[in-house]
């Protein structure tokens, strides 16, 4: 708590994130979706629903890739023999 109070926003990095930094993938993808849908969609009806759909889909794909790489590194690679 005291570390958070000593934090200077925009000047100091947000170190309080710790090991949860990867969760920032969600706002990053949301920002990309907001811009992508703004320039790509023919009209702005149902804009936020499409932004949400793209955010969920992109995060699901990225999360699946991360899971596949995790499984490969921790379970498949140890099975490989060096000889």
């Amino acid at each position, binding site marked *: 708590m005291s570390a958070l109070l000593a934090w200077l926003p*925009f000047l100091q*990095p*947000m170190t309080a994130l710790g090991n949860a*930094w990867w969760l920032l993938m969600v706002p*990053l993808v949301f920002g990309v979706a*907001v811009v992508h849908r703004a*320039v790509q969609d*023919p009209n702005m009806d149902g804009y936020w629903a499409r932004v949400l759909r793209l955010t969920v889909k992109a995060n699901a794909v990225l999360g699946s890739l991360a899971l596949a790489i995790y499984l490969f590194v921790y379970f498949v690679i140890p099975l490989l023999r060096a000889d």
Partner: protein
Amino acid sequence: MSHPAESVDGPLNWFPALMGWVLPGLGQVLLGHRQRGFRAMGGVLGLFLSGVLVGGVDCVDRREDALWFYAQAGAGPIAFAADWANSALLKTGKVGRLIPSPPSNPRLPPPQVTSFKTVTMSNEVGTLFCFTAGLMNVVVILDALRRPSATQGAWTA
């Protein structure tokens, strides 16, 4: 699916595209696509400010991270302002303090770096957010360059 941005044989909107670099989304607003422009503006500025919030202004550095900065500069003057804040506030020690870092050449005096400089994931992710904001604004600028005006083509060339 076809939409207006795909009409490639129309005139180019050079002025709105330039204004789109000065302030993300302003090109679309000038062309009469206000809602589209303000949403693009919110997205690009949101990404950039989130990056600086997470990583601090140190994640925008024209000299030390030039390759990252080339893309970050796509977000417009806000990237140069963040780089200025980094140089004028952090690197001079006006905010935080300067501490010696391990020298790359032992015969030279140790370089001074700000105590706010980190090599944590926060800095990396902040750099990535600002980088993405710059690239997405390039997309927005290109869209403004080609998008037909909703107000009788006043800005086309």
